[in-house]
């Protein structure tokens, strides 16, 4: 049997969707309530890591393949840079080039919301990647490496 016991699997199924929605909420409302891209991204990553722990790596990778995670990782960072660079059109790097909107509405405060989203993408995929790398990683033992080098 791949993954953990039935209890863990079932309960994971119950909560994973909720965790992801909660993480997205934290990201999108980062400029109105406590939270933001870093916190939300970590929460979203946690959902995928939970799925990986409960069901094994194949199920998690079917939802978020490793290559896709790499693309999201670099793409999120690039998007952050580009949003910042977009500010140059109105004056300076990281100047707010989007409309400020209305206070206390979801679509307000200009570039902060897209920046939060970019960070969330970056953080969640990064943490997922590093966890999968640490979980799956198997290398020859250190002793074998030293013996190889001596030989």
């Amino acid at each position: 049997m791949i993954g953990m016991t039935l209890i863990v699997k079932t309960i994971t199924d119950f909560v994973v969707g909720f965790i992801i929605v909660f993480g997205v909420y934290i990201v999108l409302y980062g400029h109105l309530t406590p939270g933001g891209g870093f916190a939300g991204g970590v929460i979203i990553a946690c959902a995928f890591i939970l799925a990986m722990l409960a069901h094994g790596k194949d199920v998690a990778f079917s939802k978020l393949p490793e290559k896709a995670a790499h693309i999201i990782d670099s793409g999120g960072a690039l998007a952050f840079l580009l949003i910042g660079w977009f500010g140059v059109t109105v004056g300076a790097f990281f100047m707010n080039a989007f409309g400020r909107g209305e206070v206390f509405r979801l679509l307000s405060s200009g570039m902060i919301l897209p920046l939060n989203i970019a960070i969330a993408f970056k953080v969640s995929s990064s943490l997922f990647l590093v966890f999968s790398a640490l979980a799956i990683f198997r290398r020859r033992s250190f002793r074998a490496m030293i013996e190889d080098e001596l030989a």
Partner: protein
Amino acid sequence: MENITPQLYALLVFMIVGSVVAIETRNLLSAVISVAAVGFALSVAFLFLGAPDIAITQLVVEVLVLIILIRGTILLDNTAVESHRDTLAVVTSLIFFGLLLGFGAMIFGGRGFPEFGEPVMRVSKVYVHTGLPATYCANIVTAVILDFRAYDTMGEASVLFTSILGAMALLRRDGKRKEEEVVAA
């Protein structure tokens, strides 16, 4: 500030005790668990200090780290540490901590630092007062990190990117190619 200070000190004591246990225990699993306890206490402390977003992040990261560390620990056959105590290291760190405490006493006792809980609000005052009208962002923390100092946040995102990339680079199976592949290429 005054009404929560005792709780904060209690948490502080708890964290110190947890750290000492983590260092002193011979069983790796107990060490990992006490480190996690310290982390959870830290997240509660953030909550007391009025930073729920940091508390959330700290909590989630703590859970993640705990999972990874426990997984790492139980992979080992023997989770007990069997090593002699390095007297020199203990003495050195004691001396270092003594010096640090001495400096701390000098700074806090003398005229060095502002009073506890009354920071110098020269620059941050402006963030608090003009943050909402200037950025339209109700959460001042987010306003500071993603608007006033968004460039710093880009740097932090790059730090994360670098560490992930570095970890992936170091977790490669083989670092160098075989000689014949190099010749062929």
